[in-house]
């Protein structure tokens, strides 16, 4: 047997890296089409009346949200896990045939679920629960994928050389456990075909909960899917990649532990803010509101910790587009975790609820924080995985500024649109008659919808630049030696 030195095995990380890029483009492309449909309704039938069933807003909307959440983001989470997990535990996947098999199985099963999800959503097969649209057979497959990942996580931890689990590992474990719990409880459903003795489609189901209970479980899930999908694993990434890329250890490790437990403690109670002024008990609404405001503390604990990690090293932000991505991601994290609690205050929510301001909030978090951090992570991993430098630094810089402009256009237009919308909905005359009809608001908002579509298109253009840069990095960039890969990633001009 050839006696080679032990190396980390990035096979599975690489596969998930590819699915991150492909599903990111798909999800964001659908999002951009939706944005143009909102601004110009004729786009709904752009492929002809015959195909309108597949191109209209309501058919494509879950495809957008699920592709960016469960496609782009989740692939990014898996890819970074299979990279960071090995490195901070100081153990290679190559050391265990079983773990390697689990990793590959994880990817294969995940792809099957992706195909099933895209197919079923395009055909209009859905449970109608937001972010939980998959019917029961797919839900069961999702659970299998998740358990496979979990076995991989704990298996790798079991054979580690590093005794202490680095803070990122804690966040990945929380992601695994959090989503497992949320997904199982929210997707408790009854297959109608079997329950009714053969009526309707075999794959159809209805939620086990009804009315207010269903709403409560749904938003406990919906909000915490943001927590354990868009926050916790992305924090895991930044706690590893920013220190590694900048060569600076995390500013305060104690603060990172404290922020972790704070986040775990507070986040699960905040979901009630999605149901303010609805039929859930008032005390529950107040609790959702209060916990949302308290949530600023652990969120900012992590974000400030990241910014302080750059203390005395701010020249790196100017010099490296990769650090720029991460510092802006951290800044957007602070920004959206301040904006969210503000929107959860009852008096603010009375204006903001159901308006486009909420859509703006979601997107400054996802585009600015989640998207930027995942792309930065992939940029950092690529030279280590492919042993080549990042193809073009200037292209990366261009992408950064185009996408930043896109995000700014997106959230500013949605702020104005949302607040205008909220004000118009509640305006009334001296007798209490509503001053505007719904279509009045739509006419006023149309220019802002157009600006949003332009912003989204810019972000998508950046995504194509990213994909091109990554493709060139994988295939034709200059080869690098191990010694060039210690901290700052090597980049071509």
């Amino acid at each position: 047997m050839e006696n080679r030195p032990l190396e980390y095995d990035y096979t599975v990380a690489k596969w998930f890296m590819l699915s991150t890029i492909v599903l990111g483009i798909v999800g964001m492309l659908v999002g951009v089409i939706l944005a143009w449909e909102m601004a110009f309704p004729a786009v709904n039938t752009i492929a002809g009346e015959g195909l309108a069933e597949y191109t209209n807003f309501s058919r494509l909307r879950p495809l957008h949200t699920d592709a960016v959440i469960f496609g782009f983001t989740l692939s990014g989470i898996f890819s970074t896990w299979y990279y960071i997990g090995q490195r901070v535990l100081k153990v290679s996947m190559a050391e265990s045939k079983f773990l390697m098999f689990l990793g590959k199985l994880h990817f294969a099963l995940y792809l099957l679920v992706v195909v099933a999800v895209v197919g079923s959503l395009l055909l209009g097969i859905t449970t109608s629960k937001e972010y939980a649209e998959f019917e029961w057979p797919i839900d069961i497959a999702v659970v299998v994928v998740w358990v496979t990942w979990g076995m991989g996580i704990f298996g790798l931890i079991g054979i580690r050389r590093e005794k202490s689990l680095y803070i990122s590992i804690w966040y990945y474990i929380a992601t695994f456990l959090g989503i497992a719990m949320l997904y199982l409880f929210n997707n408790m459903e009854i297959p109608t075909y079997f329950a009714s003795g053969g009526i309707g489609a075999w794959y159809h189901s209805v939620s086990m909960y009804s009315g207010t209970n269903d709403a409560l479980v749904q938003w406990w899930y919906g909000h915490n899917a943001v927590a354990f999908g868009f926050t916790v694993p992305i924090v895991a990434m930044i706690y590893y990649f920013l220190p590694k890329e900048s060569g600076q250890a995390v500013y305060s490790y104690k603060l990172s532990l404290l922020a972790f437990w704070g986040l775990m403690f507070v986040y699960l109670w905040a979901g009630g803010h999605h149901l303010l002024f609805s039929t859930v008990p008032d005390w529950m609404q107040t609790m959702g509101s209060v916990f949302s405001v308290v949530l600023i503390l652990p969120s900012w604990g992590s974000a400030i910790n990241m910014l302080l990690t750059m203390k005395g090293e701010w020249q790196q932000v100017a010099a490296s587009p990769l650090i720029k991505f991460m510092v802006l991601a951290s800044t957007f994290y602070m920004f959206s975790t301040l904006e969210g609690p503000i929107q959860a205050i009852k008096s603010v929510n009375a204006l903001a609820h159901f308006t486009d301001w909420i859509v703006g909030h979601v997107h400054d978090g996802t585009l600015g924080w989640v998207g930027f951090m995942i792309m930065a992570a992939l940029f950092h991993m690529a030279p280590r995985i492919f042993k080549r430098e990042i193809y073009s630094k200037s292209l990366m810089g261009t992408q950064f500024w185009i996408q930043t402009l896109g995000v700014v256009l997106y959230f500013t237009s949605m702020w104005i649109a949302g607040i205008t919308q909220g004000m118009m909905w509640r305006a009334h005359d001296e007798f209490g008659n509503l001053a505007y009809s719904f279509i009045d608001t739509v006419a006023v908002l149309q220019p802002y919808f157009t600006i949003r579509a332009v912003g989204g298109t810019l972000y998508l253009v950046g995504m194509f630049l990213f994909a091109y840069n990554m493709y060139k990095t994988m295939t034709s960039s200059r080869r690098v030696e191990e010694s060039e890969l210690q901290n700052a990633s090597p980049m071509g001009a």
Partner: protein
Amino acid sequence: MDIATFQAYGYFFFTAFLVAVLYGYIYHLYSAQKKGTRDYEKYGNIALHDDITDQPIEEISKTDEIKK
């Protein structure tokens, strides 16, 4: 006392208990570092020295192996 009141008290005291645990943990983190019983900050280096050939910051010791 009906069940709802009981739940409300239970919820309040449980939350208060968790808050106390969280503050206790903060106290523990900073006092352990100050007294020198445990240096938490060294774990930040796990990310920086993460080559497979690097010495682990805190190796799984032989005694740990035996315990398993």
